[in-house]
């Protein structure tokens, strides 16, 4: 029992990830305001980014910038264990900027919807669409 409990406790990064995913997903499904939905989408993206970056961590290693990375002979001393995994950082680096760009498009659509219907509440928009 203690082993199971400690195995859950040492994985606290996934706890945060699961919590953020649930918050973001709930906002996407249950909220009726479009801006709140967009915020939920952003929280969801943040959760995925946290998930990836936390996967790249290694105990007792440093950032993936080589200490003596100059010249051709430097690479002999480099051990993969000394540096954290650079791959999730690369993927999330682009994902962060792309998420800002998609946020811009989402907000542009929200502005358009507001210009058309005068509201951002989903049920009010649906009522206006049903009305001929």
């Amino acid at each position, binding site marked *: 029992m203690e082993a199971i409990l400690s195995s859950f406790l040492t994985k606290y990064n996934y706890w945060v990830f699961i919590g953020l995913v649930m918050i973001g997903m709930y906002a996407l499904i249950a909220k009726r305001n479009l801006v709140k939905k967009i915020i939920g989408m952003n929280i969801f993206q943040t959760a995925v980014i946290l998930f990836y970056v936390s996967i790249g961590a290694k*105990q007792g290693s440093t950032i*993936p910038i080589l200490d003596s990375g100059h010249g051709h002979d430097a690479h002999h001393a480099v051990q993969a264990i000394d540096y954290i995994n*650079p791959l999730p950082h690369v993927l999330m680096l682009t994902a962060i900027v792309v998420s800002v760009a998609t946020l811009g498009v989402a907000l542009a659509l929200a502005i358009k919807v507001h210009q058309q219907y005068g509201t951002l509440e989903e049920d009010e928009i649906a009522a206006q669409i049903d009305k001929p």
Partner: protein
Amino acid sequence: MRFIALITILLMGGLLFYGLPDFPDWGDPASPASTHVSPYYIEHGAADTHAPNIVTAVLADYRGYDTMFETAVIFSAGLACFFLLRTFRQKSAETKLYRHIPTGVTLRIEKGGKTPAGSEEFEPIDSHWVPYDMIINMTCRLIVPFVQLFALYVIAHGHYSPGGGFQGGVIFGAAIILFAISHDLRSVFRRLQEKTAILLSAAGVLIYAGTGVLCLILGGNFLDYSRLAGLLGVDAVMARSHGILIVEIGVGLAVMAVMVMLYYNLSSAGRHDEGL
């Protein structure tokens, strides 16, 4: 609706929780993600590309295709925002508002009145109360050049320290947006027109894709920078390092211009008047 959503979310959370023991421990060096591809990048990155910052090397060299299409995604997001929001037909208002810059007095000119258009001392404004504060204006005016300089440093020094095209481009865009917030959109348009921003974002993507095509013309694979060695006059490893810098500059241009375009269009709902 809320109840169903809650049930769904709890179910999803429960499934993730159920899979939790299968995930590797926090900071486990032997986790599957850290044992297959990334050791190669860490151990050979510097020898292959002469870039101590492995993130930069992977971003612009090993995974160059991915980054190129990410840049294209950002570019198309900027264009999408432009096409969605931009309106060119202006409703000509009944009354026009002008502010006398030295005194801060606002003039309200009725229809048919003579407007001080073209005068250096007056500027057109759109609402009765436009926030104008000299301290904020001057502080931002002083800070913006240093922020821009830092952005250029982040782009140019991306091989050796945390940084690169995406980060530097966002910082540069933030500097321009800071100027736009502290002044108004019109004074930013005098320095960076919308047309220039669109051209810059397209130029950024073109630099990236053009570098790839250049490598293709020189007989290598697409985005194989070592083929640029003859053109740049360095050996193949240094050519990859320089190739990374070239595409990072392209990425920085595209990201900066798209951030600015997004702000232009979102803050004024596409009308491009005085903005926020």
